[in-house]
C-alpha cells in the first residue's frame, strides 16, 4: 500500500571545493535518478568554494526535475540582488529553485567586505528574517498577469499590477518593484536550518522547509511539533511547512545502504519528520549508495515515489504556489 503521507528525501552535494561544472552536474543527475526532491549546495565566504547559486544555475539546464537549493547568505549581500538572483534561478530551472538562507557571523567574513563589523548571530538572523520578508515581497511585486502586451494602447505591462514594496528594515530599505517578473513558482522555496534558536525563529516565520537536527525520532517529532505550533502562532498553516530531519550518512557497503533504508523507514513510521535531508560524508560515494541501494528499497516498501509526478520543486514538496500578497490586497480594496 502506498504511503498516505509522502516521504521527502533530499541531500547536500557540497564537500571539498570543486570548481568544474561536470562534478556538480553528475551529482545532481545522480540525485535526480534517485528522484530526490532537491539537492542543497552549501556556501560561505569563509572557506574555499565557488558561488553556490552560480553552480546550481549551471546545473539547471543539465537536469530536468531535481530541485536546486543553494545557500545564499544575507549578511554581506544586497537583499535586492539576492531576491533577483534566486528568482532568476527559478526562471532558468523552470520552477525548481530554492534558497537556503544563512548568515555570516565571523570577523574574517566581515573583513572581506570591510563594510560592517562582525555581529552576533541573533542580530544577523533578525536581518535574515527581514531579507526573507523583502525577497518574498519583491517576488510578489509583479503580479503573474502584469505583462499584457496590449498593442491597442501600446502598453507592455499593466503598471497597476506592479507594486512598490517600500520595505524599511533595521539595516536596509528597498523601494522596489523587482526588476525580475514573478518567478514560475511564485516564491522559490525558502529552506532554513532551524537548529539554532535565532534561525528557528526565522524558520517558523519564513521557511517552506525547516531542517532540524535530532539524535532520535522522538526528539525530532517534538521539534517538528514545536515548529508547527510556532508557525501556526504566526498565522501560518503548518501543513504548508515541511520539516526535514538532517541525517549525516557515511555508507561504505551495500549493507550500509540497506541499513539506511531501515533507519529512514523507522523515522518515517515514528512520524519524526516529513522527510530526511541527507548529509553525506563523502558525497560521491555516499550518494551513489543512497541512489542505488537505499532508494530502491524505500520505493519497494512504498515509502518513496518512483518518478517525479510534478515539474516544480513546490510540486515535489506538495506545497501550493503562494498567492500574491499584493494581488490579495488589490482584491480587498
Amino acid at each position: 500500500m502506498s504511503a498516505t503521507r509522502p516521504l521527502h528525501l533530499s541531500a547536500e552535494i557540497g564537500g571539498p571545493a570543486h570548481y568544474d561544472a561536470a562534478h556538480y552536474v553528475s551529482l545532481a543527475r545522480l540525485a535526480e535518478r534517485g528522484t530526490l526532491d532537491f539537492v542543497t549546495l552549501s556556501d560561505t565566504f569563509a572557506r574555499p568554494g565557488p558561488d553556490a547559486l552560480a553552480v546550481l544555475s549551471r546545473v539547471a539546464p543539465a537536469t530536468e526535475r531535481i530541485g536546486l537549493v543553494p545557500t545564499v547568505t544575507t549578511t554581506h549581500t544586497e537583499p535586492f540582488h539576492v531576491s533577483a538572483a534566486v528568482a532568476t534561478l527559478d526562471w532558468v530551472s523552470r520552477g525548481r529553485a530554492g534558497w537556503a538562507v544563512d548568515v555570516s557571523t565571523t570577523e574574517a567574513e566581515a573583513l572581506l567586505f570591510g563594510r560592517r563589523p562582525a555581529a552576533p548571530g541573533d542580530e544577523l538572523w533578525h536581518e535574515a528574517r527581514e531579507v526573507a520578508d523583502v525577497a518574498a515581497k519583491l517576488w510578489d511585486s509583479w503580479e503573474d498577469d502584469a505583462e499584457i502586451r496590449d498593442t491597442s494602447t501600446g502598453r507592455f505591462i499593466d503598471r497597476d499590477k506592479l507594486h512598490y514594496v517600500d520595505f524599511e528594515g533595521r539595516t536596509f530599505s528597498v523601494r522596489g518593484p523587482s526588476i525580475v517578473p514573478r518567478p514560475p513558482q511564485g516564491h522559490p522555496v525558502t529552506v532554513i536550518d532551524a537548529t539554532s534558536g535565532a534561525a528557528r525563529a526565522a524558520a517558523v516565520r519564513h521557511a517552506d522547509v525547516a531542517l532540524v537536527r535530532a539524535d532520535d525520532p522522538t526528539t525530532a517529532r517534538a521539534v517538528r511539533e514545536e515548529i508547527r505550533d510556532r508557525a501556526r502562532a504566526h498565522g501560518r498553516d503548518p501543513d504548508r511547512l515541511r520539516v526535514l530531519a538532517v541525517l549525516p550518512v557515511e555508507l561504505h557497503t551495500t549493507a550500509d545502504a540497506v541499513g539506511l533504508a531501515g533507519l529512514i523507514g523507522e523515522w518515517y513510521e515514528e512520524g519524526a519528520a516529513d522527510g530526511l535531508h541527507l548529509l553525506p560524508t563523502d558525497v560521491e560515494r555516499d550518494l551513489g549508495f543512497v541512489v542505488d541501494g537505499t532508494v530502491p528499497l524505500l520505493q519497494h516498501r512504498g515509502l518513496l515515489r518512483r518518478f517525479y509526478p510534478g515539474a516544480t520543486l513546490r510540486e515535489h514538496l506538495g506545497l501550493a504556489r503562494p498567492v500574491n500578497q499584493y494581488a490579495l490586497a488589490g482584491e480587498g480594496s
Partner: protein
Amino acid sequence: MTEKKQIHLAAHFPGVNSTTVWTDPRSRSQIDFSSFEQLARTAERGKFDFFFLAEGLRLREHKGLIHDLDVVGRPESITVLNALAAVTERLGLAATVNATFNEPYELARRLATLDHLSGGRAAWNVVTSSDAFTGENFRRGGYLDRADRYTRAAEFVDTARELWDSWTPDGAPRPVSHDGRHFSVRGEFTVPRSPQGHPVVIQAGDSDEGREFAAASADVIFTRHGTLEAGRVFYADVKARLAAYGREPSDLKIMPGVTFVLGDTAADAQERAAEIRRQQVSPQNAILALEQIWGRDLSAYDPDGPLPDIDPDPESELVQGRVKIADPFAIAAKWRALAEAKGLSIRQTVIETTTRQSFVGTPQAVADELDEFVQTGAADGFILVPHLTPGGLDEFVDQVVPLLQERGAFRTEYTGTTLRSHLGLAEPVWKG
C-alpha cells in the same frame, strides 16, 4: 599573404527600450530561459565572440509612474549566463554589473565562478551609476558624487584583480590586503585563479573619465559611435591613450553597439528599416519621447498633430532612470524647424529624429560596410543589437556572417576555447 584584420562580433540580448519591438508577432518572452538559449545558440552558430546582457536595477519611471510602453523586466545577468554556459560551448558570456551597488569581494567571486564553470568565457561590463533613484533599492543608498564614480569603479576593478590573482599557481590561497579610498578587503579569496586569469573587462562609458578608465583598465570598450567618421575619431582618441598605461593598441578592442536591417535589395532594406522605426515609435511612445525632451506632461497633445508651442522645462524631474537630456531647448528648436520644414506631425517628427539603424542594406552591402569600419580604423568589431527577441539575429548569422567569412574577415571556426582567445587578448600576468 598578409592576414586580414579580423572582425569581432557580439550579440546584445534585446533591451528594455523602444529599440526592442515587442508588438511584432514574432516577438517572444524577454524572461523565459528559452529566449536566452535561442539567441545564444544563434550567436554561437555564427561563431560570435560573445553574448551580452545589460542590467536593470530599478524600473524606469515617467511622470512618477512605472514606464509601461517598452519591454519591462529581465532576469539577473550572471545567473542567466551560468545557465547559458550549460547550453553553449565556446561563446563568451558578458554580464553588465554596476560597480556602485556591489562590493568587490562578492562580485569578483561571482565572476571568477562564472569563468570556472564556463571554462574561461566570462566577461564583466563595468558600469557606474550615482543616482539616488536607483540607490533606493540598495543598502548603500543613493548618492555617490559624480566625480567619484570612476575612481570607485577603477578601485573596484583593481581590487577584483588582486583577488583573482591571489591564489598561487599550485592552488593555495594567499591573503589579500587591500586598503583604499573606497574599499577595505582583507582575507582569502574562496576561488582559485580562473581559466582566463581575469574575466574580460568591458567598459561602456563615453565621457573623458570613462575613456581614460578604459585605456587604463578595460579589454573591450562598448561605444555608441556607430558612424564611420565618429568611429574613426573615437578609435584614434582611445587607442592613443593606451601608451600612457604601457599598453599596446591591440590590448583594447573597440566595439560600437550597432543595429542593422537587411533586405533583398537596398530599397527593400530601407523600407523594412522605416517600418521598424514606425513599430519602435508607437503613438504613445512618440508623446513619451517628446515629454522626455520637454520635461512636461504632453498627454493632451495629439501624436498626429503639430508639436507643442510651449517650451521645455529644464528643471524637470519628470523622467527617472534615464540619462538626462543636456540641452532640451536646442533639441526642441531643432525638432520644430524640422517639423515645420517637412510638415511633420509629432509622431512623424519623432520617427524622423529617431536614430537611424546603423547598417541598412543587402547582406553584401552590410558586410562591405562592417568590413570597411574595421579595416579603416573605426572599430575592432561590433556589438549587434537586434530589435526582436529571440530571432533578431537569425538573418545576420545566416546571410552576413558567411560573406564576412568569405572575405577572410571573420573566423569560420573557433580556434580557442576562452573569450580572451576569441578576442586575441593575452592572458594577464599573474601578479602577487
